[in-house]
């Protein structure tokens, strides 16, 4: 865990209400896909926990959806601004059990952490399938980026304006997989839990105080005991989840 200054290199809207930041700074403590960073914003007391979409050299990419005052402020920020960022938070995905044909399932703001996972899995020579779920076609992002990695990509939209009409689980029948990784809103995670036959890893979201395990603000119950989403998670394995 490191608390260092990053420089905002770019801030662009890549889909409806969805922004991508590229930041430059010390990313050395980010060791696994599915980890997150906690960003200090002027005028806000608590930091904003946002998942890591990608790291390359000294560049950190995050993608966030505007959902409240903090993310509104983030959307208005310009290249060149400096931000204090706590990095290396959370356990992240364990890619070891992926098998040869891992499946990544991302829904909305849960898509970004799938990108670094996909890249790492492709670098390891895996045959990677990706299901990306959105509400409507104007919310779709990163489809081409996953395809550029050589992943098989299926898009679902609730209103059917892009890809398969329905939810991510409606695309499960079109892929073969040995293991899965998923991130998205809780109802989606629950549906994925019920619709999948293999084991897998789920990344959860919760309101956090600190983001590094001190305040006990984000504790959940699991079959393996109480876990802090920020530190013992955000990734939990299928076998330990209690809904």
């Amino acid at each position, binding site marked *: 865990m490191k608390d260092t200054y990053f420089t905002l290199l770019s801030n662009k809207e890549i889909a409806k209400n969805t922004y991508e930041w590229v930041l430059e700074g010390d990313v050395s403590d980010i060791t696994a896909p599915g980890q997150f960073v906690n960003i200090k914003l002027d005028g806000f*007391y*608590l*930091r904003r926990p946002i998942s890591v979409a990608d790291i390359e050299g000294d560049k950190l990419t995050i993608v966030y959806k505007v959902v409240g005052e903090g993310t509104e402020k983030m959307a208005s920020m310009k290249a060149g601004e400096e931000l204090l960022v706590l990095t290396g938070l959370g356990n992240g995905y364990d890619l070891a059990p992926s098998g040869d044909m891992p499946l990544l399932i991302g829904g909305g703001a849960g898509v970004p952490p799938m990108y670094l996972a996909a890249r790492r899995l492709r670098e390891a020579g895996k045959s990677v399938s990706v299901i990306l779920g959105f509400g409507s076609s104007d919310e779709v992002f990163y489809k081409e980026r996953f395809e550029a990695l050589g992943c098989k990509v299926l898009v679902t939209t609730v209103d059917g304006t892009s890809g398969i009409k329905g939810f991510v689980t409606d695309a499960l029948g079109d892929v073969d997989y040995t293991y899965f990784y998923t991130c998205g809103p809780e109802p989606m995670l629950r549906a994925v839990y019920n619709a999948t036959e293999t084991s897998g890893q789920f990344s959860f979201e*919760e309101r956090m105080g600190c983001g590094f395990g*001190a*305040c006990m603000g*984000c*504790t959940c119950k699991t079959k393996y005991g109480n876990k802090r989403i920020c530190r013992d998670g955000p990734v939990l394995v299928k076998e330990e989840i209690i809904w």
Partner: protein
Amino acid sequence: MVNTKVSLCGIELDNPVIPASGTFGFGYEFAELYDINILGSLSFKGTTLEPRFGNPTPRIAETHSGMLNAVGLQNPGVERVIAEELPKLRAVFSKPAMANVSGFSVEEYVRTVERLDTAPGIGWFEINISCPNVHGGGMSFGTDPKSAETVTRAVREVTKKPIIIKLSPNVTDIVSIAKACEAGGADGVSLINTLMGMRIDLKSRKPVIKNKTGGLSGPAIKPVAVRMVYQVFEAVGIPIVGMGGISTAEDVIEFMLAGATAVEVGAHNLVDPFASKKIIEDLPRAMEKYRINSLTEIIGGAH
């Protein structure tokens, strides 16, 4: 060379800065970030007789210059604290620690203190009679002078270690509670715990926190805390541990001028994991700026 040493209930501290209970776990996780032996002491996570999961989430809400929490005293219970948490703390912290204890009955406070009394490495007990986030205990002992005195007296009988009673600001007259604790044999009082508050989400039209109410902490509460420390200092003869929104070395000095012998840093540890370290390292500069040679000299200096 400025002197940052203070004496709290007969135990000397290298400096008056103590991370507050509930914001620093059992210390060892912060020890991965820096040598926590630079701290004056630390008040570890509030411990109860039985294990507690705490409240359902969301437990946290942001506010202007602060935050609400309704964690609800999550802890593994005193037996596991002694068996698992304290050895990990002792491995990274060689100074006396402050044991923060909560309960839902006088007997629970007494039994928890009895169990911890023989555990190594404990310098003081901080008896929390002011948690606003649990029902049927916690704060109910801290909002009535008679109950506060009863708990103090009962705990006094089972330990020779200094006992510091942690007071609630959610009362009409904190001075009367502080005096009752002193009468009951307390060696000190610490104040303030969080102020009860609420935030409502405009989209869901419901309280953000599942428990509905939570305790407000952070810079927003500092003036309330300074005022209460000032008032209690005038009324009691026992040392005060001041807290509420401390985030700078200047804040430490302000609380000590109001009457605090030592201070606790709470919410700021959560927005900056290095907060307590930075405050301690910055203290000499702030002391020189305000021409303070020794922190002991300024305790209650505003009166």
